[in-house]
């Protein structure tokens, strides 16, 4: 099956995200184990590991949030959609996605301002590591989530207005990127 360039770009981005997620998680498992080893073997613990692990928790959470936004797998109460007919549900989805876009944009903008502030004040995360490069995941992830919610808004609008159903190969894409 041939794919449009846009699709390919999207697939590439997904692969990149997955790779980053897998990398951070793997590093985290290994580092956490190293931390215990050095401590028990009395070779002297490595002081930066535990704060670094905590930052990784935030990174994993936000990266996970980005990935979950692709397929809109967020924790939500889906009451109205289950009661409403399909066409109405699509239009409700327009509203909720647009609202999510708006909030994520706000979080990204103010997250960015916060990172700038941390940079200006020279905040330190641990040891000699400055905080701002680690904090940049906050505006970045919410910006990506905003873009994804925006795309979903347009999609829902299109399918809601035209009454067409979403193409099935979208689901296949999700699997193909595994």
């Amino acid at each position, binding site marked *: 099956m041939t794919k449009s360039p846009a699709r390919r770009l999207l697939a590439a981005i997904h692969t990149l995200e997955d790779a980053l997620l897998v990398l951070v998680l793997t590093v985290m498992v290994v580092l956490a184990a190293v931390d215990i080893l050095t401590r028990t073997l009395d070779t002297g613990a490595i002081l930066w590991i535990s704060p670094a692990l905590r930052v990784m928790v935030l990174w994993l959470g936000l990266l996970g949030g980005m990935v979950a936004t692709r397929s809109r797998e967020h924790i939500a109460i889906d009451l109205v959609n289950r009661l409403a007919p399909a066409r109405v549900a699509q239009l409700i989805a327009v509203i909720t996605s647009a609202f999510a876009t708006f909030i994520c944009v706000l979080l990204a903008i103010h997250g960015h301002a916060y990172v700038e502030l941390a940079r200006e004040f020279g905040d330190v995360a*641990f040891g000699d590591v400055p905080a701002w490069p680690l904090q940049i995941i906050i505006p970045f992830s919410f910006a990506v989530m905003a873009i994804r919610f925006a795309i979903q808004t347009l999609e829902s609008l299109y399918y809601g207005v035209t009454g067409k159903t979403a193409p099935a190969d979208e689901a296949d894409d999700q699997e193909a990127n595994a």
Partner: protein
Amino acid sequence: TLKIATLAPDGTNWMKSMRAAADQISAETDGRVKIKYFPGGIQGSDKTVLRKMQIGQLSGGAVSAGALGDIAKEAQLYSLPFTFRNQQELSAVRSEFDHYITDAMEAKGYVVLGLTEGGFAYLMGNKPLRTKADFVGTKVWAPEGDVVTATVFQKAGIEPIMLPLSDVYTSLQTGLIDTVGVNMTASIALQWHTKLTHVTDLPLLSLMGTMIVSDKSFSKISADDQAIVRRVMKDTYAAMDSQNTKDEEGARQALQNSGLTFVELSDADKATWQQLADETLAELASKDVYPVDIYKKLQARLTELRQGQ
């Protein structure tokens, strides 16, 4: 309204006098200046509180002097290891040296409303800890982000386990740590003393509490009202000093009553600790953690005081 956050829990004597001060300020300014407290660390760690002051969510905070080290290294002046041998020495130099801290903070945009002595940190563990050798195999806690404490222990040849305050009790319970450095009042308040048996009777470093308010919030108050706030807080903090000293004495008695052993050190042991402190100071100086010149002045003054006795 001034919004002030602190790690100290509600209901403590300390919070009671803070609330009394707030009432007095409100009365004297005819309700123009109100103070709202956020006790118990609900606004986050000292670091988070400082950040929230910068973005204007909070006006101020009652934080440890150590937490201000990132803003002005002068704040570390009294918090270096083995500087003072007892509370009297610290009290004696305050009138002469406090202004270095307050001036440095004001230059960075913070008004220091109060500076108080929170007693000394003592080593507490589950066996007598006299020499370096006694530390082999101990698991020592150091507060997260506390460079000074961490460096002392590293010089003693141990890697401290850095944990936030909230994890210490559980970690003592499960044995992840077995040695802490803490003042006597807090060791009882946090109930750590129930998991410990020995106190090394040597003051490690003095713990100072500060109350700071950001210029941004303070300048919203009229000059007259500012003067009232400064005066009432200053008086409250001064009264706190003597209360804290009494509390520490009481806590020492309570620890003895509950069966903890106080371990005396020989002069030789004390000398090795002093050497450790000197190495620590040298390393911290190279990292520019504290104001070296002012600290030398402080030490000279202390030497004079000791000779005078």
